[in-house]
């Protein structure tokens, strides 16, 4: 598979709007998690809420798409001149040769949750202004972004829980390789809603303090929200050493359990191996691993076994979910962009919040930022249903 160029990218999370505040927060080892309670949620937990989403006004022509998730998408698209870079791509390829493949786990779920609270007391009907197609349906976010960018190529949502927006890199890679499209907008958007907060609470997987990945006393995840967008295309021209390429994608299934990972991390290991194989790289070529690292007991233990088995105990790794929260269907996109920043700025970011490393997890988990040359970074994203995806990003295409 030919490497693809990440020719533009932008991320908005609780760390900030765009690449610059994101990088600054990573450098400062700042977490964006807060104890402020979201909406009407009464759970004792921390969340990574993005500031200002409620104030976003989406384009008038697309007002039927108005919901928190699409507001977050629209906010995200404004970052880092991403819209301008899409216009350039349209000029190069035309609107029908650019795909849109976004990951989300809940899309506009908050919209329907609120609609159920405002049913007609007599008939039980949902409010007349509830728009199923453009807000609640999982496809809503891709539909919105495709129309907002005036694109007319192939499009869909990948909704495989927390691997969603990593897997879309594979979809784009294959469609470009097959010649159906020349470029694709990939990434993910997931926003806070009651289903995920109360859902993870019901599974006793929600921490009541900021999540602590790989900590001996880790006790669950903190949920965040984010919008991450990447323009992927065939290698255009090497503009400099800061060009970032997608080198490999690996995908697998655990075939084990709906909400627990394979205890030995076999599915995770298979995804990493497939990404390495596709990139024609070996584990020693990987300079930094951005872990899935949700901070649940089982997830971190299984992932550590997979990492140790393939890389040994030395490869620097961290989870950035202590900073961003677990942004679920957007996590793969967010963390691919964090890997891109790591490569561009020679920064292996520390995992924040973690106090005492779990001695049972035999990996080189970073608790301080490491300034080091990173030519190749691995990003892991795993999800419910035993879905696994690993991405390899690098400074130069493998030759």
């Amino acid at each position, binding site marked *: 598979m030919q490497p693809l160029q990440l020719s533009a990218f932008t991320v908005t999370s609780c760390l900030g709007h765009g690449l610059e505040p994101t990088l600054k927060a990573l450098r400062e080892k700042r977490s964006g998690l807060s104890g402020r309670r979201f909406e009407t949620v009464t759970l004792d937990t921390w969340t990574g809420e993005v500031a200002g989403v409620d104030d976003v006004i989406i384009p008038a022509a697309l007002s039927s798409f108005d919901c928190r998730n699409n507001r977050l998408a629209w906010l995200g698209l404004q970052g880092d001149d991403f819209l301008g870079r899409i216009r350039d791509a349209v000029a190069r390829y035309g609107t029908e040769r650019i795909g849109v493949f976004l990951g989300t786990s809940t899309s506009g779920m908050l919209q329907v949750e609120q609609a159920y609270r405002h*049913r007609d007391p007599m008939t039980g009907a949902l409010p007349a202004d509830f728009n199923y197609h453009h807000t609640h*349906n999982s496809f809503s976010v891709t539909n919105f972004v495709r129309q907002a960018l005036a694109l007319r190529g192939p499009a869909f949502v990948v909704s495989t829980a927390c691997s969603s927006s990593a897997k879309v890199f594979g979809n784009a890679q294959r469609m470009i390789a097959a010649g159906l499209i020349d470029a694709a907008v990939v990434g993910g958007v997931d926003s806070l809603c009651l289903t995920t907060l109360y859902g993870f609470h019901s599974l006793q997987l929600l921490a009541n303090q900021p999540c602590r990945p790989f900590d001996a006393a880790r006790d669950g995840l903190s949920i965040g929200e984010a919008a991450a967008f990447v323009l992927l295309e065939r290698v255009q021209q090497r503009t400099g050493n800061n060009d970032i390429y997608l080198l490999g994608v690996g995908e697998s299934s655990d075939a084990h359990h709906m909400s627990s990972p394979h205890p030995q991390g076999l599915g995770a290991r298979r995804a990493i191996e497939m990404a390495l194989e596709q990139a024609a790289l070996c584990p020693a070529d990987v300079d930094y691993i951005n872990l899935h690292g949700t901070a649940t007991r089982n997830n971190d233990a299984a992932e550590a076994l997979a990492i140790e088995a393939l890389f040994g105990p030395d490869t620097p790794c961290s989870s950035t979910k202590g900073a961003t929260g677990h942004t679920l269907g957007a996590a793969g996109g967010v963390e691919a962009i964090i890997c891109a920043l790591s490569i561009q700025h020679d920064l292996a970011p520390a995992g924040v919040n973690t106090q005492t490393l779990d001695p049972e997890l035999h990996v080189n988990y970073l608790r301080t930022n490491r300034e080091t040359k990173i030519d190749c970074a691995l990003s892991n994203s795993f999800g419910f249903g035993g879905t696994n995806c690993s991405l390899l990003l690098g400074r130069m295409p493998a030759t």
Partner: protein
Amino acid sequence: MTLPTIFLNGIGAFGPGFDDWPSLSAMLRGEVAWSSTATQAPTPQALPAAERRRVGMSVRLALAAGFEATAHAHADPVLLASVFSSSSGDGQICDGLCETLASNDRLISPTRFHNSVHNAASGYWSIATGCMAASTSLCAHDASFAAGMLEVATQIAVTDDDHLLIAYDTPYPEPMQSCRPLYDAAGIGLVFSKHPRAQSIAALQVSLAESSVTPCPIQAMTALQTGIPAARGLPLLSVIAKQEAGAVYVQYLDPLALRIEVKPCRANC
């Protein structure tokens, strides 16, 4: 832009009035009159008992379509990469969560929560079959069937691996049903390979084109085609059932339709 030919080796079909591919294909050929009876999906015996008890209609439907298709194709499910495509996953589960979250007691069931993910059917499929190959779960609203077909044809073009497509939908109960009326539930399973096999039924070529959609030739069944996203594939299945050659256009995203050119594999006529 046309993708390389793929070969269809097995079909599974569950929906209103039919509970396997032989019964649906007889209806599409006009040999048996279609009558609408509520969709039934068998309990997936391949799942461990604990999991079997937990699955709802959407998972039962998807797995039934997958098992029929793989048996028809003489394919080992363990070896198949898969693409699941659905407009809304499981409507009952979504409604149940929203009901609970709108109540004074928001304690939702953990099983219902992990079954609410769009890739629940994919997860249970991999548990039931032991398949560790890549699997994805797509949504493109009414274009979900075509999105799944396009993805499968793309994956086969690039990877050479055999693939299973499962398109499935279940309706929402009220009050969601009024906002998103679906006729009933349906699940279609299709097994494909890059090269022809002894079992191959038809050769398919997939491309994108600006065109109107091909209607289902059995007029009564157009209510299914337009009323269930997974059943947008009925015109394709109709051509295959009649072992005809020809092109059909399946609903995709404005301004595009998915053009599928079908040639029967004569050995299996």
